[in-house]
């Protein structure tokens, strides 16, 4: 497959591994947070950590919109199905995420709720057209990559005058999340957050552009390298972070130049701006309330906003007692630091979202990496600064 296979070549992996080993200063640690769950997945699936020297460690960030969605929002989605009898269209990722009382959309579906998995917002629109007598709600989740497709669907629904379609909007913003992680105060029992640099998200950046991270790099003095999705991209980007740190630079660099530009996709940005506006605050799992970090539907499209069409009570639900997702999402605890990990919490029986989503730190470590010692799997260890 073109543009995929070339970026997975083993001989180039060995070349890059040798370069990283040569250039990483053995007197210091390099702690690189990969913000994006897709990178976490690639690192584990290909065993990229094995090719890094011991002083270069990946710290797994929250970059999984499934992981950061608070339980209360899923409870609200369930209520739409059970109380309002809608057809709820959702991406596959959301089906097994545990909500309150250990329920999930998959379980609701098994009990007779009309929950339907879709691959695209276009599928949801089709379901609405095919079922004029039923209300159809699209459960919109995702970072900036996934938001433009929702915008297109809303505009199409408006233009068609579709009466029975609406969107339950949970789109969230990446730079805000990165800021929140860096700003979050240290909690009792947590290690101090120690991140030297970031691998920036691949596909969010194709939409928002690499410029979007410049204020972050400047304000916090951390290098940000926009990294492609394939394992060679991850390694090359790690090398670029290492070089920046060695040279005392903190800039935004773009390794994924084959699809990411400085300004991003203007057309997609415009469509999003026409349909969505900022929420003043939004609750993030693990980060609490974060300002200017999420989107809601504009008044011009209010008739297509599920939160306005239906009584959706704001449900604030707490995590399962003992679940360390909030700390793990911020990279200050490891999966093995959570008492529930591997005891009551596993992919078959997930307690929190870090285990449900295959990109969550806990699921990735469990599924791909638990044969290693915990320290090898992205530990947050204080080293020589």
């Amino acid at each position, binding site marked *: 497959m073109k543009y995929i296979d070339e970026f997975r070549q*083993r001989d180039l992996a060995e070349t890059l591994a040798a370069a990283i080993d040569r250039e990483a200063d053995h007197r210091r640690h390099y702690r690189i947070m990969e913000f994006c769950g897709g990178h976490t997945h690639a690192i584990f699936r290909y*065993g990229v950590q094995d090719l890094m020297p011991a002083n270069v460690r990946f710290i797994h960030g929250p970059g999984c919109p499934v992981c950061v969605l608070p339980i209360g929002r899923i409870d609200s989605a369930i209520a739409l199905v059970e109380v309002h009898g809608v057809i709820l269209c959702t991406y*596959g*990722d959301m089906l097994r995420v545990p909500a309150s009382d250990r329920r999930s959309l998959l379980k609701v579906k098994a009990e007779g709720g009309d929950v339907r998995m879709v*691959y695209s917002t276009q599928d949801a629109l089709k379901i609405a057209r095919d079922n004029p007598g039923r209300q159809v709600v699209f459960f919109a989740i995702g970072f900036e990559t996934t938001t433009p497709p929702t915008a297109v669907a809303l505009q199409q629904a408006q233009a068609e005058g579709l009466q029975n379609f609406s969107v339950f909007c949970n789109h969230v913003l990446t730079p805000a999340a990165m800021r929140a992680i860096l700003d979050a105060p240290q909690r009792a029992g947590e290690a101090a957050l120690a991140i030297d640099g970031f691998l920036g998200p691949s596909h969010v950046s194709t939409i928002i552009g690499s410029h979007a991270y410049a204020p972050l790099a400047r304000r916090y003095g951390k290098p940000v390298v926009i990294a492609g999705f394939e394992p060679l991209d991850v390694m090359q980007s790690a090398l670029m972070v290492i070089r920046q740190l060695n040279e005392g630079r903190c800039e935004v660099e773009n390794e994924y130049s084959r699809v990411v530009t400085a300004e991003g996709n203007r057309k997609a940005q415009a469509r999003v701006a026409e349909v969505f506006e900022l929420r003043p605050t939004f609750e993030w799992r693990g980060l609490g309330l974060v300002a200017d970090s999420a989107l809601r539907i504009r008044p011009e499209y209010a008739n297509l906003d599920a939160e306005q069409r239906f009584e959706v009570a704001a449900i604030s639900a707490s995590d399962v007692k003992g679940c360390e997702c909030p700390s793990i999402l911020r990279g200050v605890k490891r999966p093995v630091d959570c008492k529930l990990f591997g005891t009551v919490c596993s992919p078959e029986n997930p307690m929190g979202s870090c285990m449900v989503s295959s990109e969550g730190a806990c699921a990735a470590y469990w*599924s791909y990496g638990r*044969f290693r010692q915990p320290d090898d799997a992205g530990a947050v260890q204080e080293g020589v600064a």
Partner: protein
Amino acid sequence: MSRFPMRLDIRRGHVDMSHGSGGRAMAQLIDELFLHHLDNALLRQGNDQAAFTVSAGRMVMSTDGHVISPLFFPGGDIGSLAVHGTLNDIAMSGAKPLYLAAGFILEEGFPLADLERIVISMAAAANAAGVPVVTGDTKVVERGKGDGVFITTTGVGVVPEGLAISGDGARPGDAILISGSMGDHGVAIMSSRENLEFETRIESDSAALHTLVAAMVDAVPEIHCLRDPTRGGLATTLNELAQQSGVGMRLREATIPVRSAVQAACELLGLDPLYVANEGKLICICPAVAAERLLAVMRNHPLAAEAAIIGEVVEDAESFVQMETSFGGSRIVDWLAGEQLPRIC
């Protein structure tokens, strides 16, 4: 040659409750549809059971319920799948399958044309395999209480002397072999489902493996394990074997054959081919000294031309299945947690 005043209208007719009631309508359905296509001496006797003699030896019996949706998919249908599935379960003990039984649960309203298509397919699969369906049963449930048709097949076979094939038989040092490409069946199924439409030339690999197994055990009677990686794919089946045998495994990703179209479909959906179902492949674990010899025998058989040695069994108290990735790093290949769902993230 019909015993009934009017032939069944297979082209336009549907299953109704009378077809399951034990009366004339049911007899006609059995006669003109099931018996007509599955025809063999034992079935023609028209009894509620089939009587046969088997040579003295160890017998094997297996049963499977088939509930697959969609009923028809590229490379097969629920009928051929049902036959192949049970033949394979018998074959995985090293046994030669002898006879099959088939029970049908039909939903009221199911088109007779579709039912005939399924039965014709079953008959073809059974004939090709040389294993007849000698007895069966039909029931009808009300509309809404079945998914068109459910089929249960049961098979019996005889194990040749000198074989000791079992899931707990893997030993450190053994070689792990597979008979061909992984993931074909699951992708073929997904390509026919609603909301996941894509055009692809991948067909299900559904096939009866008993002649392949016969050749294998003939050449290497000391085979330790045989299992077919159906639901949950190669990864799940290897984990089952590792756990049953109390051993670990080390695989090499580069040696596992996956068709490029299957790879592409899995990329698109965010799935891992190691977890996608197969219906015409087997895993074999044998002593290392016999591996090359066994591989040669397998590759000589039309269903295993792409057979490969993919790894070895090791000591491991945790029974991990580890894999060296084609990238050069290492990961474990864990059990499948629930159903693999397509993802966007």
